């Protein structure tokens, strides 16, 4: 039963990822990305990381993707294509290389043995919070600094005149 769910969500994820690449207008690509994020969140729930699943939807799909769409709308972009692609050869070389990489990784990864009996792990907010505010307190504080810097940088870059 649970495998079916996995396969369903996996297929949705891969399909929407491919769609991101295939779409011509960048707005459709971002909408596909939102679908991908939702599929990933579902997989998180399957892995008993409920807190992260919800956070993924709220922050990633809810805030970041909204930002993307906002900018796309702001710039009022036309459909893609700006003349012929000068670097056509990249397609020819890149896709085989990428597939080769995937095959190699998959071949190795396939042999990884998971633990026989999965220990019971609750991805609850309590568990995450307990670890986050004790062992990883310093990185946590630093990320707040990081966000502050990103905020300032974004404002500076986007200004019309400094």
């Amino acid at each position, binding site marked *: 039963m649970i495998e079916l769910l996995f396969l369903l969500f996996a297929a949705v994820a891969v399909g929407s*990822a491919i769609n*991101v690449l295939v779409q011509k207008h*960048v707005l459709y690509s971002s909408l596909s990305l939102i679908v991908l*994020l939702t599929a990933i969140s579902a997989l*998180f729930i399957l892995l008993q990381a409920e807190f992260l699943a919800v956070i993924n939807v709220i922050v990633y799909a809810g805030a970041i993707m909204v*930002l993307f769409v906002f900018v796309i709308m702001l710039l009022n972009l036309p459909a893609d294509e700006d003349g012929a692609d000068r670097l056509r050869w990249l397609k020819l070389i890149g896709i085989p290389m990428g597939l080769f990489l995937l095959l190699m990784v998959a071949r190795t990864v396939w042999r990884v*043995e998971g633990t026989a009996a999965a220990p019971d*792990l609750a991805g609850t907010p309590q568990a995450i919070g307990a670890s986050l505010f004790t062992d990883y307190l310093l990185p946590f504080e630093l990320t707040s600094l990081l966000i502050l810097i990103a905020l300032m940088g974004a404002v500076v870059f986007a200004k019309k005149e400094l």
Partner: protein
Amino acid sequence: MIPLNWYLVLGAALFLLGMLGFFLKRNVISLLLSVEIMLNAVNLTFVAFSSHNGQISGQIFVFFVLVVAAAEAAVGLALVIAMFRNRETLNVDRSNLLKW
């Protein structure tokens, strides 16, 4: 229980797709979207490992990846706006002044 390597293969496939998108698309915003795909694939891998090994630190790391992705998206889009204002185009091939 779903075996770990299924998740890992899925993560690898998503990562590959993100990578391909990165150098096949010409729109700068598409590049940023591809980077987001890659980050998500990594998140999936982390959570899979965390779940199968019983350690919470994998999920903590995902937390941080999320934060960094947010910051990066914000700054990146600001750059996109600045670039669009100067060049009227979002074709990344047009920004090739830093060459030999």
